[in-house]
């Protein structure tokens, strides 16, 4: 069976500059939840952006394929690529404060896409939006639909964005650090909502995060990234039992343990970093030769 999303040898580079993603390969089956972890700048979000066709202007795909339901979206003409991505995938963005348009009411921001892109009837789309808003624990959905974003709190807006992402029943949702912009008390609640929605709707989820604790709760599989290179691709259970890469082990050791509040923070050691960097450099040398 073809995977829902299959990324093969994807390299993204700054125009005439260094590679941001280094021959990334990654597979996501239907209903699978995969975590993408790594330090800031490791290219986690870049993968999501490449899949959704929203790479920044300064970056471009230099090699590789992105198969969405078996079709390489990189070979499609722009308009068709947008339509295809819009039908299959959705995004839960990082910052709920900038992800809703300040000039439009909440309702249309959820329903317009269902009506205009997927051809739903407006009443059906509105009923659907109400239902989803209730599902993400928004207490007065009908009122919220008429609100403007600035009238709602950050946590509310993030829940709206989650509802909106699930609205068209996409097969794939990319959650780009959906909790980093929120305060800690709200984070947990949002995670629970995302996990619950995912389970009920059976959506595949690509979960970009730098929090291994989140990965252990939400994901089945994960990819560890460093400098745009996938170091390890494994199941979550295996990873926490025995990480397959020295860097992953160091990353895991660096996670603070709530069971040991007195323990000191363990940064990833310099020898480990040197070893990973050497690996990355070797990959770059090899890549330049072909």
């Amino acid at each position, binding site marked *: 069976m073809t995977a829902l999303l299959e990324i093969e040898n994807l390299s993204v580079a700054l125009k005439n500059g260094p590679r941001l993603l280094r021959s990334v390969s990654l597979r996501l089956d239907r209903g699978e939840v995969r975590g993408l972890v790594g330090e800031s700048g490791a290219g986690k979000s870049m993968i999501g952006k490449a899949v959704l066709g929203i790479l920044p202007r300064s970056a471009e795909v230099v090699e590789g394929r992105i198969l969405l339901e078996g079709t390489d979206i990189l070979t499609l003409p722009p308009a068709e690529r*947008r339509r295809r991505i*819009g039908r299959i995938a959705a*995004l839960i*963005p990082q*910052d709920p404060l900038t*992800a809703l*348009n300040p000039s439009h009411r909440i309702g249309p*921001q959820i329903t317009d896409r269902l009506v205009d*892109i997927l051809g739903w009837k407006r009443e059906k789309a509105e009923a659907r939006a109400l239902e989803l808003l209730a599902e993400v624990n928004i207490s007065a959905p009908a009122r919220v639909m008429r609100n403007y974003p*600035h009238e709602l709190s950050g946590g509310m807006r993030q829940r709206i964005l989650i509802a909106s992402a699930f609205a068209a029943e996409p097969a794939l949702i990319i959650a780009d650090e959906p909790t980093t912009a929120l305060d800690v008390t709200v984070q947990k609640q949002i995670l629970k909502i995302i996990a619950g929605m995912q389970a009920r709707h059976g959506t595949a989820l690509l979960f970009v995060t730098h929090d291994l604790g989140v990965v252990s709760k939400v994901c089945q599989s994960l990819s560890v990234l460093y400098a745009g290179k996938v170091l390890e691709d494994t199941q979550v259970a295996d990873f926490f039992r025995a990480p397959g890469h020295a860097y992953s082990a160091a990353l895991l050791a660096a996670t603070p343990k709530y069971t040991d509040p007195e323990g000191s923070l363990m940064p990833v050691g310099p020898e480990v970093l040197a070893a990973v960097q050497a690996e990355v450099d070797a990959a770059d040398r090899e890549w330049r030769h072909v």
Partner: protein
Amino acid sequence: MLDGRGSINRRVGARLWLSGGWLLIVCLASAFAPMIAPQDPLAQDLMSGQLPPFWVHGTEPGFWLGTDSLGRDVLSRIIWGGRIALQVALIAGTLTALVGSTLGLVAGFYRGWADRIISRLVDIWMAFPPVLFSILLVAVLGTGLRSIIIAIVVIDWTRFARVIRAEAMNQGAMDYVAAAQVAGFSRQRTMLTEILPNVLPTIVALLSLEMGIAIIVEAILSFVNLSISTDAPTWGGMIAEGRTTIYQAWWVLVFPLIALFLTVLSFSQFGEGLKDRFDPVLR
């Protein structure tokens, strides 16, 4: 202002009231000029030239703000001049906003070659001294209201293009634009429904500023005798004529100057007031 979130009931400030009030007066006076103006603005009467305004000794009833050296009533000429000023402000301002904002929006949102062409045009335009440029344009196009409007649009579109381009670039970097792209909306639709509503407050504020500037440009052109026709009552023309008799009849210069000053100031303050009233809520 009631709270940080911005309530609908925010007070309309004194700025908005005062500027809006003056603009309303000017609009009404222009609309009903034939009924309101006490005298015919073009009627000359050399026997009653340079009559002073009503509170100065030697005035004559019916000529509230005095007469110029040809005996034309200053108040009536200001009222009729308001008509021309307002026409220029509204038509030239709107057209300038339309042309400039469209180009700025396209440049800022699509970037790429469209941006390069438009930005270079703006750079070239900025290298011309605007007043000389406008005089040159009217000299080429010939005098008349239409030429003045064309000149203002041709000169001032860059003001909108620059600001709106920057705004569109800011807005374009927001996540909701990415979200619209992911949802499958076309670039054009994203520009019109996602970006445009968010730059609209800026366009409105700039537009009212531009209306004031248009009036000044018209006055400048009248001053150098390149405006409508020589005897048509325009504020700039009156100021130019008043200058020659400033020592004998200061009122010929001062009253149109006050009208011009208040109107230009009101336009800019009205725009700022509107922006304050409606904009920051959303950011």
